[in-house]
């Protein structure tokens, strides 16, 4: 296992956000994390990425507890839901991709941009791109450090269908050709069924983790998921 999560619990002022979540991620996995809004997906990611440290339980990356060292972060690429940055930030795509690089290797920056089909726009300003294109740049930024794992938090929110398909195609290629393990949260069950080989279904507790086909062929499980999503939806409104 390259990631091992044991009894992870988080509460915000007494309200449970995650309740004793345990699961592992093997090398080469393409894990789709699904769950309704407020299910704790982003909280799980924040804990895994060291952005939220007030949790109980343990998170291990590459066999080491993340509380002991932050070195594991250099092997992880993160693509946030909707990157918050100033639209007028004066930086080109090439500068954005290279600024996260641990080394200074322009060749790697070009390669990373080619992998996400953005090399032709390398000298454009980041703010001039569409959300879908920006998300591809953020994948390239993650790739510039040759990560072993890519973490994506609902990356195609607000992205048009064409760019979503392009995005998913790139993810698939990175997983199969580059052997990068992918942890990806999404609302889109169809996309998860198409792309992910493993599924974790989350709603504060983990009520499924396993092979994708097992989840999508289990009528009971799908019914339970849609009921929970509906309840959460009603609760939010």
């Amino acid at each position, binding site marked *: 296992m390259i990631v091992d999560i044991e009894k992870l619990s988080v509460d915000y002022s007494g309200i449970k956000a995650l309740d004793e979540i345990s699961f592992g991620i093997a090398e080469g996995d393409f894990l789709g994390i699904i769950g309704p809004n407020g299910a704790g997906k982003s909280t799980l990611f924040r804990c895994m*990425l*060291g*952005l939220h440290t007030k949790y109980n339980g343990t998170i291990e990356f590459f066999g080491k507890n993340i509380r002991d060292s*932050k*070195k594991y*972060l*250099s092997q*992880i690429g*993160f693509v*946030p839901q909707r*990157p*918050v*940055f*100033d*639209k*007028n*930030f*004066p*930086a*080109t795509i*090439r*500068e*954005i991709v*290279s*600024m*996260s*690089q641990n080394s200074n290797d322009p060749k790697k920056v070009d390669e990373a941009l080619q992998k996400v089909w953005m090399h032709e726009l390398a*000298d*454009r*300003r980041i703010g001039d791109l569409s959300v879908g294109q920006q998300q591809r740049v*953020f994948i390239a*930024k993650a790739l510039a*450090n040759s990560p072993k794992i890519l973490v994506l938090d609902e990356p195609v929110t607000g992205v048009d269908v064409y760019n979503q398909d392009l995005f998913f195609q790139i993810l698939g290629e990175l997983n199969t050709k580059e052997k990068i393990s992918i942890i990806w949260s999404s609302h889109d069950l169809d996309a998860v069924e198409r792309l992910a080989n493993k599924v974790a279904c989350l709603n504060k507790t983990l009520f499924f983790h396993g092979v994708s086909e097992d989840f999508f062929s289990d009528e009971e499980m799908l019914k339970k998921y849609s009921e929970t999503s509906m309840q959460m939806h009603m609760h939010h409104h």
Partner: protein
Amino acid sequence: MTIEFLSDLSVQYALISGIAISLFCSTVGLFLVLRKFALFGDALAHTAFGGVAFGLFIGVYPLWAAYVVSILGALGLTKLRQSFDISSDAAVAILLTSGIAVGILLFSISDDTPFHDAHDMEEFLFGSILEIEPENVITIIVLCAIILIILRIIYKKLLYSTFSEEQAKVSGIPVEKINYLLIAMAGVAAVTSMQLVGVLLVSALFVIPNVSAMLYGRSFKQTISLSTSFSLFSVVMGIIIAYPFGIEPSGCIVLLAIAILIGSLIIKSSGIVKTIGVSPKSV
């Protein structure tokens, strides 16, 4: 107008110091502007004013006291801001008013100190680059070199944490340490530039050349080069224009920077320069 006055030592000292100050103020300032912290330079300068008064009060050279008070004040407030989630504009207001309040109080109770007269006060408020001492010129050059070297070393990390603090943290960048370092450098830059333009106009050097540069610069490197060029031009021409006419260089420098900004806005709006930089509406 002849240029004989350029052989005057005081003008040469002013130009050398001005060039050094414009280099680091525009560079540090760009990071502050991009972090929506444009007025922080102003707040730091006002804290420095409190520091000057503190120096006079305890009998220490006022400028050294200003460096210490300004940097400590800025770092302390940054810590408070992070711990209690105080917004940037509120932090600026707190720092600015505290500095002035301390300054007024200490100036009023240190009447009999050697530096204390209206002229000294004016120097700190409006700058006195043409009266700069040779040893201060050396200090400014050394500080300029230190700041530019630090910026070169942490450039990528600083740029990344300015672009997105969260993403920089996830990449393992020590964002908080980088923030403290930037604030400390801004403190040094603000106190140093106080000698050029005075407490009241320090933020102009941090902000105006950068806003002009952002209208044209497509890349970060381009923006920083333009900002430095605009800043250098304003400072050098400001001193050169002010000296023969016996007017305050500080006002001249800032008005030239504003003239460049207005010119840039006009050029940009007229469509002569179409494809690069931000639109004038976003400024």
